[in-house]
């Protein structure tokens, strides 16, 4: 398999990270935002990227890895182009989040956390999305979708 050569962070990534740095008292403080900026461009954070970010922030890669693994929205493995997060917290669970998950996975023929064969989607659970009065809910990429039914799942997946 051809391995992509890592050519370092892009200048856009570095500029955005530096802009964030001006908001804080030290460089370490932007570690989470820096990882999120990298993810915005690359969907996930590879080892090479993690090391490059650590260098930029002048902290050790181990220190940054400890941060990266703590947070749920930092992905250290490849993910699909669109992540569909389904809420599995209490109200959504009561109103059918298990069925929503089953329906999503069945349609895409994937397990939780797995990338769909076409690289388009990854399905992941998430905690309460703050829309419990419209349970069950999912988040498709950045967009919150309310009152989810099987039809809504079909529509989201475009089939």
């Amino acid at each position: 398999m051809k391995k992509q050569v890592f050519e370092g962070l892009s200048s856009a990534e570095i500029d955005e990270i530096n802009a964030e740095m001006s908001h804080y008292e030290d460089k370490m403080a932007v570690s989470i935002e820096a990882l999120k900026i990298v993810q915005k461009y690359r969907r996930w954070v590879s080892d090479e990227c993690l090391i490059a970010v650590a260098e930029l922030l002048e902290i050790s890669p181990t220190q940054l890895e400890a941060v990266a693994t703590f947070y749920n929205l930092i992905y250290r493995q490849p993910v699909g182009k669109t992540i569909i997060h389904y809420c599995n917290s209490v109200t959504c669970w009561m109103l059918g989040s298990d069925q929503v998950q089953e329906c999503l996975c069945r349609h895409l023929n994937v397990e939780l956390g797995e990338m769909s064969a076409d690289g388009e989607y990854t399905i992941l659970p998430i905690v309460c999305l703050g829309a419990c009065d419209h349970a069950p809910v999912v988040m498709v990429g950045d967009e919150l979708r309310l009152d989810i039914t099987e039809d809504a799942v079909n529509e989201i997946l475009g089939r």
Partner: protein
Amino acid sequence: MEKMDKPLTKNIRPDRAFATLADYESTGGYQGLRKAITELSPKEVQQWVKDSGLRGRGGAGFGTGLKWSLVPMDANVLQTRYLVANADEMEPGAFKDRLLLEQDPHQLIEGMIIAAYAIQAKIAYIFMRGEYHLAAKRVENALQEARTEGYLGEHILNSEFNLQIYLHTSAGRYICGEETALLNALEGKRATPRAKPPFPLVSGLWGKPTVVNNVETLCNVPHILQNGVEWYQGLGRGSDQGTKLFGASGRLKYPGLWELPMGTPIREIIEEHAGGMRDGYKLRGFLPGGASTDFLLPEHLDVLMDYEAVAKAGSRLGTGTLIVLDDKTCPVQMVLNLEQFFAQESCGWCTPCRDGLPWTVTLLKDIIAGKGRIEDLDTLAGLTRMLGPGNTFCALAPGAMEPLQSALKYFREDFERYIVGSHAVMESS
């Protein structure tokens, strides 16, 4: 004319469009700030908020003015102080701050500027959970508008007061909402809570005095300044002042969120505003203030939603968003769902919580799978004590035990049914 009885939501429109700066100003927006900065000293602002009786809306209900007054102010004028708006809202069942952030971001910003003025902070952060993308976009826009209009930045409203507000979006962990863990998260570290004392008010972000307030708390502040303490005190119906966003979710006819006087009876929220249970379902109980509060029963429907009354009934007002249990949902399975959340979100720092929550989950799963023994209920009760207040490093674990301990008390027969059932199966085979 401002709708005086619903100050927090008066700009919120049913079409979910958001209030622009012009909309916000047209209903009196930034008048509270003007009054604070041009007519009152920081100490006087603290006193107004103290006198108003406003208590924190983030769950603990600490007096807001009192909190501000504990920030060391006499040190040299160059001392850095920070203000942080806690917009992490990740408690299952809570969905109030998102509305305020998405639909009236200037209200929060004005509240923050006034709070920062009161404690003389020059830098403030909005700590927002990473999933609130729309809220982040709208808040960022509103911050830009406020800077352009001279409400933020240098010499605010031509005074000597300077303030920058930055938006920090997090990356998803419930513990980040705990105020000392939040400070570590803002410093770019793993979000484990810090030992108290020293309290953040004295030594917070980068060791500097820091006030952390909930979004809804801060949203109350402009109105207190604009309309006065007496007006604010007149809004409550029970022993607390002001209004609050109350919500209800579950198998209700019209789940939703409403701004109502503090001290509104629970019955009114569930039966009138939410329209009662859906056809075919009966009310079995409810968590009054989010996932980390004790169950209450239909017999508690006439309890008032204020801090004291809910505490007297054996629970907590928490976030003020009710989660309703119906008669066709198994309370044991509901508690399992809640404990799975807490076990997953534990930061792992202290042993009782790190080990006790997964153990709780295992016991509940075994019981539901028919593999439980009657002694397991005593073990669970023991865990609620072991993980209770004072035994863990932060309030996550005690919060996790609240729905469990009350379920064991009120729904014991539901637990026993699984256990008795399994014995019956064994005997007949």
